């Protein structure tokens, strides 16, 4: 932890960051939150089927994205949309995916928020928890074997650490010294069950890394500066071919698991309002204010600007359709990309569908 309650940055882990960089981080976190808020609204309006927010966890993704290189490869979960935002990926493209509309690069195939962007170095999100974590290590092994300086950064939730892929990732990362940053996002909840059900009570998640001989850090995930500093350190190690680092990011899922979830059924109503660890956005803006680089007027203005920006992007995306209203891609396209070339049996099936058989 670098930022204290007063917004002061303390300790040796305090990174040297210019006010501009800090403001960029603040902006990306605020934009991520504004985006989340709009998308939940449009989901309620029936414009799409599902949505997942990252409220309270914006620093985990945004600070990490800013601490690694633009072309390092990210293997995220469904709660790191902040990576795309921090990498200035167009919101309208993300919205097109959420709407499965005619502009969706994924051609309406994936559930909302399962983004993919090769260009943004953002690996395809799988609905299956944990699988990306071990894949990231494979990607990093390949990068190292190719004498490529790019590293891989992966994220996994506290709950998903119980999957075999977590164990595979740490084992292979240790055995092959993979240049990877293995982030564990401990937001204290896995849908309705708290982190203890992944073994997070008996010890920390960071401790897991040590058991494989991997240096491991445990940081305040709502502290932009701390996340940035830890990630920067891990990235430098990986690039120096010193291998992988495990980073546990302690944060808090401030909202429901998804639009299909009702947290009031399993956690105290006031727990969220108490907001353990505080709001990462507030904390960074307090710090900027403390160092005289920010104030309420600018904050309010920025909030307004971002809200307007999200609205515009939303209009642009909805012009390309929504899941509720369409338009969408041509349904016949659903037979493409199962294989590189469409085999005969899929051509037959496409015919059948078009003939209504």
């Amino acid at each position, binding site marked *: 932890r670098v930022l204290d309650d007063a917004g002061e940055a303390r300790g040796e882990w305090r990174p040297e960051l210019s006010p501009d960089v800090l403001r960029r981080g603040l902006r990306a976190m605020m934009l991520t939150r504004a985006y989340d808020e709009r998308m939940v609204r449009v989901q309620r309006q029936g414009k799409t089927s599902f949505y997942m927010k990252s409220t309270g966890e914006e620093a985990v993704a945004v600070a990490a994205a800013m601490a690694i290189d633009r072309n390092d490869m990210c293997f995220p979960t469904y709660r790191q949309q902040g990576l795309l935002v921090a990498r200035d990926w167009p919101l309208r493209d993300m919205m097109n995916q959420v709407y499965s509309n005619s502009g969706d690069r994924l051609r309406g*195939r994936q559930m909302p928020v399962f983004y993919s962007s090769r260009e943004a170095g953002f690996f395809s999100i799988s609905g299956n928890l944990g699988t990306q974590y071990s894949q990231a290590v494979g990607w990093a092994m390949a990068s190292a074997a190719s004498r490529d300086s790019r590293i891989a950064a992966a994220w996994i939730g506290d709950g998903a650490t119980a999957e075999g892929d977590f164990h595979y990732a740490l084992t292979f990362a240790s055995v092959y010294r993979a240049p990877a940053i293995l982030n564990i996002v401990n937001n204290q909840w896995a849908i309705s069950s708290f982190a203890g059900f*992944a073994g997070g009570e008996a010890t920390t998640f960071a401790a897991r890394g040590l058991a494989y001989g991997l240096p491991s850090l445990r940081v305040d995930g709502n502290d932009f500066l701390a996340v940035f500093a830890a990630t920067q350190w891990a990235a430098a190690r990986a690039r120096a071919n010193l291998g992988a680092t495990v980073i546990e990011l302690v944060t808090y899922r401030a909202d429901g698991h998804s639009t299909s979830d009702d947290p009031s059924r399993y956690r105290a109503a006031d727990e969220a309002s108490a907001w353990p660890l505080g709001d990462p956005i507030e904390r960074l803006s307090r710090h900027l204010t403390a160092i005289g680089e920010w104030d309420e007027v600018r904050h309010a203005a920025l909030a307004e600007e971002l809200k307007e920006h999200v609205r515009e992007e939303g209009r642009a995306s909805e012009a390309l359709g929504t899941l509720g209203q369409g338009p969408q891609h041509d349904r016949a396209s659903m037979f493409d990309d199962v294989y590189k070339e469409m085999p005969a049996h899929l051509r037959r099936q496409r015919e059948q569908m078009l003939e209504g058989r």
Partner: protein
Amino acid sequence: MARMNMIQAINSAMDICLANDQKVVVFGQDVGYFGGVFRATDRLQERHGETRVFDAPIAEGGIIATAVGMGAYGMRPVVEIQFADYIYPGTDQLISEAARLRYRTAGEWWSPITVRTPYGGGIYGGQTHSQSPEGIFTHVAGLKTVIPSNPYDAKGLLIAAIEDDDPVLFFEPKRLYNGPFDGHHDRPVTAWSKHPAGEVPEGHYQVPLGKAAVVRPGSAVTVLVYGTMVHVALAAAEETGIDAEVIDLRTLVPLDLETIVASVDKTGCCVIVHEATLTCGFGAELAALVQQHCFYSLEAPIERVAGWDTPYPHAFEWDYFPGPARVGAALRRAVER
């Protein structure tokens, strides 16, 4: 008698088994305190305590592995895999262990586990919340596979599965939880409360494993279905006016071949419908068996109507789902020979 939807019937089955047999335990992701993301275990922890109904780590392989170990101890674990799409990390323990334990020990040990898991599409779940992987497990000797299509059967079959001494995979058609969805996604679904099969006894009863049900007698064509497709087939029969005999298999392994053969010998043709991808789906086995046992009474090729051989596409759910129109067309082709 009470009126139950499918979730309530499944909940009641577990509730009764927990009450009748101390050896029954229920666990899985979010099933304990929360009562399950589909509410199937609602209140069970409250009623039966935290040592008998509890939450599990997100490790399907670990859930099935520990269930096998508990079964070897002498318990009857009932585990929930939150979505059938997430059962794959557990395949090794299911195929290599649960299915083979009795055989490899010549009956010295066995694994009387029940694995409940919601399957099938129709809820905009995309490729990872819509799958129908039953065909992978029906290939495995030692496993039983059960798929109910209504509340009455769901409760009776689940009780039978839990009380059965072999490992049973119990696939729950999630699209049917609230009502007999017939594939007409543009129409409101009638609630189970208005359906005869929504009449469910409160107490203990079994629907035997391995017995199919003729849910619509007919003479023109035999339709083999299970789970969600039962109601799609019934709708297609009504809408085409074709006198189809609709057979709800209910149990895939062991299969009620007699009922199938008797029907096809009578009707002379057969349409098979499932939501799983076509190639090597359970329909392939059905077609192979029917042509083998009814070769000389078959008057037309056996038709398979199934999910296309692609992942389940989020936006094109209703082009993927084998609805009444496709099934109706197959019925027509079958009778217009």
